[in-house]
């Protein structure tokens, strides 16, 4: 088991979760999603986002609509599908549990160490 793989998997899961959370509030196009993700330093390279978006769309968790923009060609505005909403709901719960669990474990661990 390679550490890189573990990290990558963690990041992928978290990234998907974050994207869905960002889109939950209102539809955004790719560059806006990128800005938000970069603010929280979740992305190393921008290219990562595009395959993810397409896969989520193919999995019918996301959908998009073309919308005209003032400063260029039409943009794809991504939005969460009902299926995606329940998927996100599930992730919320799981994340809450995970956070709790991780917190407990790491807290105990840290306390033991200190």
């Amino acid at each position: 088991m390679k550490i890189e793989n573990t990290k990558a998997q963690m990041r992928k899961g978290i990234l998907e979760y974050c994207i869905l959370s960002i889109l939950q509030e209102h539809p955004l196009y790719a560059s806006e999603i990128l800005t938000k993700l970069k603010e929280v330093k979740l992305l190393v390279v921008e290219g990562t986002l595009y395959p993810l978006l397409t896969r989520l769309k193919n999995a019918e968790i996301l959908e998009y609509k073309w919308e005209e923009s003032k400063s260029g060609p039409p943009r794809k505005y991504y939005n969460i599908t009902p299926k995606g909403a329940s998927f996100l709901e599930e992730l919320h719960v799981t994340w809450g549990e995970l956070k709790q669990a991780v917190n407990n474990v790491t807290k105990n661990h840290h306390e033991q160490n200190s």
Partner: protein
Amino acid sequence: MNKTVSINLSNFHFFIDEEAYKKLKSYLDRIRASFAQEQGGDEILQDIESRLAELFNEHLNDQAQVITLKEVNDVIAIMGEPQEFEIDEEPTGESNSKRTDYKKLYRDGENEYIGGVCAGLQHYLGINVVWIRLIFLLLLIFGTGVGFWIYIILWIVVPEAKTTSQKLDMMGKPVNLGNIEKKVKEGFEEVEKKVKNVDAKEVENVLKHNSSRFFKSLVFILTKLVKVLIKVIGVILIIAGASGIAATCIGLLTWSFIDIGVDFAQIFEQLGYQLGWISIAAFFLISIPMYYLIHLGMRILSSNFKGHKWPAHIILVILFLGSAVFLSTIGIRELQEQKKVAEVNSVELIQTRATDTISFEMINNNKSFNWNDNFDLNFDDVEIRIDKDKNGFLFSEEVKLTLGASRNEQNQINIIKTARGKNKALAEKRAENIDYLIESNSNITLIPSFFTSPIENKVRGQKLKLQIQIRPNTYFKLDQKVYNHFTYENRRMLGLTRGEMINHTLFFNETYELKCADCN
């Protein structure tokens, strides 16, 4: 100073340094290759391209209008290399690492002749491309163009292998039944998904994109077709030119060398033509344009065909023009020599007793002539024939007969000879030189059906008219051949039918009407 390239990135227009362009293109190719196997790979690439356009727009300002290597490097650093995108590269993953191990059908742009369809099929089917092309050609020729349409459809439908991974797929393992089934299923799933995901706006965009692609490929196909057509025309030109020259040579050589007992040069000289020069001029007149047809054909077939230098061309053009002038002078001279017409009249009296019946008979061949039947050079009505001593003479069957009642108490035949010439005197001389001999012995008058003339007189519209004039109440007979030489008007004027005239005893009455003495 750098050369710049103009690019369209997701409908944004950019100027980009050539070096930077190369880098950007290879970067995009890498991305495309890494998503080539993935469903929706095209879409990912489009999204990335449109983001790249956005990033370039942010980087460019009024001072810097051209994308340089620096901008490309910056943007690639932001976007990341394709291998960095893959955050879920699990060894056990099955969903997106389904790199196929069977072949895909691509057009092979590197080994194309027209569109690379045949070359692509070669990799796909594992058959040598020569056979595939042959099959297409046969389908084209014998399948009433089926091959053409199959080719065009494959050309439009089958993508060209552009990236390395596509090329690898193109040359991958041979297809087997299982693979084909899998591929077909995959294809259906894809179509199904596409149908499900229809979105009006998207469809519009896709259609726009595809129709522009379609027209682009249509134009491309047309240009290719025109290219092939031009090559075919080139081949046709070469064949036409070569066969033209060959035909001219064969024609002229046959005249010069095939021996049918005739000395053409002599005959032509007697006619006033220099056969040698005429042949040479005719040869140049025909073969030089033919030669240029071949030249043009070669030019079309191979763009680096140079031909020879300009002095050679000038010589050829001069030869051509010279020949044309020479031949047209001969033609003009010919016309001038036919300018005037002259007639020469003579009278042949038929001596007979009043009670006799005169028989007019026509002879086809004067026994004194014995000509060579192999040779017959025909100029309108006058021919050139060869006698037994191989000398040429003019010969014509242009003998017109009329029959009428005599008003001067004589049975006679008026002989009217006609010929043409440069002036009246020459024409008259020619007319006099027409040899025609009517033989009258006892009651039979022999009328030749032809006349001759020495060859020196040349073919100059020689004609002969005979007017048979019979005293009233003199009996006479005509044979069928004589009747056949009567002019149409004369036959009508005479008023009797063919049956009543041929081989019956005829006479003119006091009012100059033709009567049949022994008809029922």
